């Protein structure tokens, strides 16, 4: 085997789990009594990817993308920044599983993103650039220190392309936010966001109930039961005092 082939293969194998072995299946179903890859549950705790300054900026950003209102908390309380923190620390952050070999050439829009940056690098560089931009244009204040209207204004200018960052595509960063923040609001709480299923309660999504045979023929009647997550529901566990 050529050395280059070997290196590419080795790099690929690192990305696969230790469970990935070729097996021969003959006269039996290779069934094991345990799940092959049970979900990992993200718990509250220190930031795992963001620095404290980055985390402060992210909590402010997610609260502008999804602001709090009278009935439903915003992105910050919902845990969207925690969700993104855990994602960036994991395979998503390192672009694991994606095709990352070069050359990295910019093509047409319909050829899709070609950037060599990982998602983690994108956030790290863009948050630094955002900080620099805010401090130099807003009298030394960081993004988190601005009031909501000024924050919205900065975000709107990034969205429209009016504000550009030096080393990274500001609009690309904004697109990532528009994908990642709602994912934190609406994905299962086991991933660190959607605290207390606030996103699901807001719209009336029952989560992973999985069986609606009792309701499929009840046309135009609102489904009455509260949502359930992969980790169950807080009220199933009596509060610890």
């Amino acid at each position, binding site marked *: 085997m050529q050395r280059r082939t070997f290196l590419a293969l080795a790099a690929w194998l690192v990305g696969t789990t230790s469970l990935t*072995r*070729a097996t021969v*299946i003959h006269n039996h179903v290779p069934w094991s009594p345990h799940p092959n890859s049970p979900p990992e549950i993200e718990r509250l705790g220190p930031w795992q990817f963001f620095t404290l300054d980055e985390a402060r900026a992210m909590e402010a950003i997610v609260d502008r993308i*999804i602001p709090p209102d009278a009935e439903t908390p915003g992105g910050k309380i919902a845990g969207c920044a925690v969700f993104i923190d855990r994602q960036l620390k994991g395979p998503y952050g390192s672009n694991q599983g994606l095709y990352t070999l070069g050359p990295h050439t910019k093509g*047409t829009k319909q050829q899709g993103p*070609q950037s060599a940056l990982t998602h983690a690098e994108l956030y790290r560089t863009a948050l630094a650039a955002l900080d620099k931009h805010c401090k130099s244009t807003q009298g030394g204040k960081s993004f988190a220190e601005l009031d909501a209207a000024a924050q919205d204004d900065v975000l709107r200018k990034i969205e429209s392309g009016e504000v550009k960052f030096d080393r990274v595509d500001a609009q690309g960063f904004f697109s990532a936010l528009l994908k990642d923040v709602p994912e934190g609001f609406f994905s299962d709480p086991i991933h660190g966001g959607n605290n207390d299923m606030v996103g699901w309660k807001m719209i009336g999504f029952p989560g*992973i109930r999985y069986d609606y045979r009792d309701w499929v023929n009840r046309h135009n009647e609102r489904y009455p039961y509260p949502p359930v997550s992969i980790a169950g529901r807080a009220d199933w566990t009596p509060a610890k005092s």
Partner: protein
Amino acid sequence: MARKLPRKDVVIIGLGWTGSIMAYELADAGLDVIAIERGPWRNTATDYPPGYAADELRYRIRHELFLSPSQTTFTFRNKMSEAALPIRSWGAFMPPNGVGGGGVHWNAETWRFLPSDFVLKTHLTERYGAGFLPDDMTIQDWGVTYDELEPHYDRFEYLCGTSGQAGNIKGKIMEGGNPFEGPRSRAYPNPPQDQPFGHTLFGKAARELGYKPFPQPSGNMSRPYQNPLGIRLGPCTYCGFCEWFGCGNYSKASPQTTVLPALVRKPNFTARDNSEVTRINVDSSGKRATGVTLVDASGDEWEQPADLVVLSAYTIFNVQLLLLSGIGKAYDPAANTGVIGRNFTHQTISDVVSFFDPAKFVFNPFIASGAIGMCIDEFNGDNFDHGPHGFVGGGYMGNVQTNGRPIETTPVPPGTPLWGAEWKKAVKENYQSAIKPGTGVHGSMYSYRDVYVDLDPTYKDRFNRPLARITMDFHDNEIKQNKFLTDKFAEIFQAMGARQVHKEYRKAPYDITKYQTTHLCGGAIMGTDPSTSALNRYLQSWDVPNLFVTGASAFPQNAGYNPTGTVAALAYWAADAIRSKYLNNPGQLINA
């Protein structure tokens, strides 16, 4: 150096839908069969149990059950004059990986093609004249007819327990079914699924407009079912996590729930998972396959000799392996010669999103199955006169909304900001009262001289082999077709009482980042002439007679339906030919 494994009668490349069917049929004929699968073994209980199968982020957004582009991907460009660039993260389609293939995470929308689809070139030329077709359109007849495939469609539907309402039994039109379908020999094995509110409303409005709506044929069980191999499936619970997900209830027809339990019990069947076939080997004459070379997950290379090779790795992987193995003449669009990579197609999908008054409509969009929905077929194939419209082709259309999963399905009226308080309010207001069918208009894509697959000159996979390169764009014919169909579709939502109807036409250029369907077709097509087809009418390679290639790669062009009913019928048809003709007298079955 590759180590040699013991010789087998048959080696099957890829243990997905057609690989499982072929393996069962050939093992059943007494042959010693081995299947080599690139991805892992998958089981309901261990891989997608109901406790966590419904994880939208993990399966829908991060594509956990699919192939990783790091393992292999494709390059893409719209035009032959452009440089192709790699698909770094999946978009327009989502290649399967692992035992069960696409069957694990498909919707199970289980259609037959129209009789005229199989003789498309002849039919359209006779009806409209040759001048009606665009010059660069390269559509062909299949070399097999609907009537020949009918018993094999039937076998697949009974294998799967397809839930549906027949529209034509032996020529008799049946009330409530699709009156345009070809005659079927008997009813579906199971009655149609129950239809939720929005789907029912669509059917009612379509009927009032004079159409003949019918429930979409579904591989999600409407009731418990035992198939002819003795395998039992449970009733579908309308969980709303079907497409992209494995079914935790054993309710979705898949190789796991319909074939594999019986196949694995056969002593003359063996499978190897986590092993990728890298080449089909041929002898020095180039006319006989000697087996395959594979690399397992530890990087070890093996050679698997076999007398018969079945390539069932999914459309584009079939094409890629043929090109990399040098089997068949590669297509050259400039010279218009060669066949491997020729007549590659996808689908022309569009959607209409409609918004209803939240005070009057509660759709509970999360109550749905993968193949739920009410459809009409008035605008499919040649079911209507194309003369006045200046295009050919068409598709079924329907309210086939499969889910209310909130990351994917929180539609807001056009003009709503993409973030902030107004966006949040619009999401909340419209979630229960909007309809977003997803693949509502399921249009055909016909074949063209400049839409094809070859090997990329620049980008390589992890084995340092060239990636397959896709050159594809939408042509005017499909754009016109889509405009016409989408407008018709929108009228039905208007009639349902929507207060706002938003049409999302499919437009050129073809965009590799926008999901349509995973219905890639063509590239190793069947036909009657070796100079314009890679396979004969039994899916046998013209060049290497002990090689059969299953999958939608055999479609000369794509029709306005999901492919798997036809893909599976063709697999049964080919298996039948191998059992009844080829084994008695191994060699080329057709003298062309």
